């Protein structure tokens, strides 16, 4: 039972972050290596909130989302907007540089927080609240994470399919030039979608320290798991990413539990995500979305490279 709840909360946090990453990839074609850093930015915003106000970090959700969103927005405006239209690999390299910058900035930030506020800013964790639910003792995370995740993803769905800005976002993702011709302000729309994707990541960051100890370089540990979810989902499909992150979350949790029962070290946990990436690309490069998308569109992984 506990294991199941663990898996659910892990998958929902994963879903929040990886759907954001997927959104980035769809709209701007940037495989953003800095995306996991927005999660960590969110976690640090929550830490700061907790240290300054003394309230429980759960309440910092809006703040963390805002912090992650602003970080993503800034990285779009300062880095990716000027580089629009460059090759995919150039954008990837730019995002690596960005990852390096954000991570180092977080390290400096952690140093300062540590010396000014006198709290641990490296390897910190939050203590969870235990709630009584019908005679069942539960950690709040098991309820809060899935609920928040569901709520935010429903909101995203509503945004994308029921509002004008959502239609614009999808139009830009489909064909930016055409959208521009039709009077869509591409830059503003893309800025907005980056903000949304960063905000989702920032919100996920609040839940992270409840399970793992978080440091400025925690991003590198989650990054490839996020990519595993995105790739398994089929690059460029939000639904696919959602399903895949649940799949990855569940299998990873269960597998780690099962194998540690057999005496296999839990330190091998990261290997799972890496194998998912490689196996997906080898066996089903269109990911899960390729299974149900009858229409053969979107980004094909095996195409001729031509410039």
């Amino acid at each position: 039972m506990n294991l199941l709840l663990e898996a659910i909360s892990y998958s929902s946090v994963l879903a929040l972050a990886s759907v954001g990453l997927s959104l980035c990839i769809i709209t701007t074609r940037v495989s953003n290596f800095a995306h996991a850093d927005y999660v960590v930015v969110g976690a640090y915003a929550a830490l700061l909130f907790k240290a300054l106000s003394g309230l429980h970090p759960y309440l910092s959700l809006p703040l963390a989302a805002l912090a992650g969103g602003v970080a993503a927005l800034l990285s779009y405006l300062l880095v990716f907007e000027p580089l629009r239209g460059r090759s995919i690999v150039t954008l990837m390299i730019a995002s690596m540089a960005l990852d390096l910058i954000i991570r180092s900035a977080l390290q400096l930030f952690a140093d300062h927080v540590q010396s000014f506020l006198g709290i641990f800013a490296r390897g910190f964790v939050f203590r969870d609240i235990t709630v009584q639910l019908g005679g069942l003792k539960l950690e709040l995370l098991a309820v809060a994470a899935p609920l928040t995740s569901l709520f935010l993803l429903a909101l995203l769905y509503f945004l994308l399919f029921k509002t004008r800005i959502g239609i614009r976002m999808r139009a830009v993702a489909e064909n930016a030039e055409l959208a521009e011709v039709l009077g869509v302000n591409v830059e503003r729309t893309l800025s907005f979608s980056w903000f949304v994707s960063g905000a989702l990541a920032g919100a996920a960051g609040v839940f992270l320290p409840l399970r793992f100890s978080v440091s400025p370089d925690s991003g590198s540990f989650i990054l490839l798991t996020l990519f595993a979810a995105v790739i398994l989902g089929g690059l460029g499909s939000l639904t696919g990413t959602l399903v895949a992150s649940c799949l990855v979350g569940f299998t990873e949790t269960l597998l780690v539990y099962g194998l540690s029962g057999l005496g296999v070290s839990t330190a091998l946990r990261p290997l799972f995500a890496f194998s998912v990436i490689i196996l997906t690309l080898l066996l089903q490069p269109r990911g899960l979305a390729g299974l149900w998308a009858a229409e053969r569109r979107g980004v094909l992984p095996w195409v001729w490279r031509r410039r």
Partner: protein
Amino acid sequence: MGVEAAVVDVCVLYAVYAILALSMELEYGELGLPNFAKAAFFALGAFSAGALSARLGVILLGMDWEGAFRERSWFYATVVTREVARTPLLGAVILAVVIAVAVVAAALLGVLASYPTLRLREDYLAISLIAFSEIVRVAARNFDAIVGGTFGAGVVDVFAWAGSARYLVLLLFALGSLALSYTVYLRLSTSRYGRVLRSIRDDELAALTLGRDVWKLRMKTLALGSTLAAIAGVVYALYTGAVNPDDFTVGKTFVVVMMVVLGGRGNPLGPLAGAALYILLDKALSFAKHLVAIPVDVNYLSYIIFGVSLLAVLRWRPQGLMPEKPPLTLRKEVLLSYLRKEHARE
């Protein structure tokens, strides 16, 4: 000794990074193949030194290995080093075997890593290579029979026979490796092979229609680049005298990619310049730390400066600090004879 050691430190690190940057240049600059598993091949060279040097020494000395590798590798490395100080031949044998194994293993692994993935589109290729690189690191970290896991492994000092001139020999070895790598790279780059690589980079379909076996060339290039990276790994391991799997994170790959982009992809001098910039920045900042009180950790500051300068280069000077020039693929005598003929006709 202080200044001398500092100079050696800078030069050896430069040689290591420059070789890595050269191998990245060959793959990414010339062929357009972003080999984001560079850290894994770099690690492979270092691992081969870490895993083999002490074991080999013990076997050659006719001793028995007692106890687990992770606990005893430092001890045996010291024992063998002491022996090498007396018999240089032992050091030479160990060095030769380590390099041979590193080169062969890297080439094989390069083919292995590339075989299934080379047909993928660039970004997928990059991500799967990153995953591959992390698999190598996590595996080395958790199976401590290879290089001692998180304990790391001791490396035999194969230049111990030189006594106090050890640093000088190491320096010569590092710079020699760099010179050799550069010569090999330059020869390849200006040959027919190099021209085909660049043609694939610029238009794969055209190269394919003109009868080039694109995938085979890619695989060959990846194997070659990996070999260079492994040599850098051996130099690095011999210099530091220790191998730790956690040294070889994806971050190392990023740094090397940035060197190539910063220096100018496609220009043979680009990676050399990029590596020099990085090392200079790094060392200048840690030197400045002693002179003025900088209120922040210098390591992170240098990362930030490096990242920002890379972004600036990407934005305002995408061809890098040293843009690609058409390479001189004809030999000088041939060129001169052409010129002379022109002259004679007039």
